[in-house]
């Protein structure tokens, strides 16, 4: 499982500062990082499991 790092953006109200700001969303194989561009508050997610369907 090789996944290139994705860099995404999402406009939303920040959990920390409450302002409607842009959040940088970085996704790679093992982690997701979401960071408010305004206040710098960041949330991290760690890889937990994978659910794979049967290959056709």
């Amino acid at each position, binding site marked *: 499982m090789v996944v*290139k790092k994705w860099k995404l953006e999402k406009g939303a109200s920040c959990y920390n500062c409450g302002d409607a700001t842009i959040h940088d*969303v970085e996704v790679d194989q093992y982690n997701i990082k*979401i960071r408010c561009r305004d206040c710098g508050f960041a949330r*991290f*997610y760690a*890889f*937990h499991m994978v*659910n794979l369907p049967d290959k056709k």
Partner: protein
Amino acid sequence: MEVLFLKVHLRVFVEVENLGKAMNALVDAGITGFYVLEYKGMSPQDWKGFSIKEDPKSAVGLIRDYANDAMLICSVVDEDKTDKIVEEIMESLEGEKYTILEVPIKRIIVNYKQKESERAETWLLEKEVPCFYCGENAVQRIRIDMNKAKIWCTNCGAARYYLVKGVEKEEK
């Protein structure tokens, strides 16, 4: 001296075709918010002389066959403004069938969602890349909740799950 600002629950029952007219009259009269209900109704003159079989099928069938489509527009208004609003409706619905009820309100309690839960919304993002599993160039959907995240391929359905690890306050 006790000053009371009474509120009235104004209910306007109209036939479907008069909904627009009634709502325009209400807005012209200065109401700020309202809600609308669609219902099936029978007026006393239609109902007169009727007696129904008591099994559920007959009762439901009667409503389907005889009751008319109607609309109920409700609004909470200040008591001192009620007369003006009612006059406005009566004027614009002259000659039409309608019923107006004015119900005094004893107390109003309004509760808003707490800010925390308001912010804890779910985000949905998309990224079109080759899937790590099926290899097809397909939209990968990302769903981010407060405590977990899921990324799945819209082509093959392979899904990766992530759990929140922590938060950090970085410098700007």
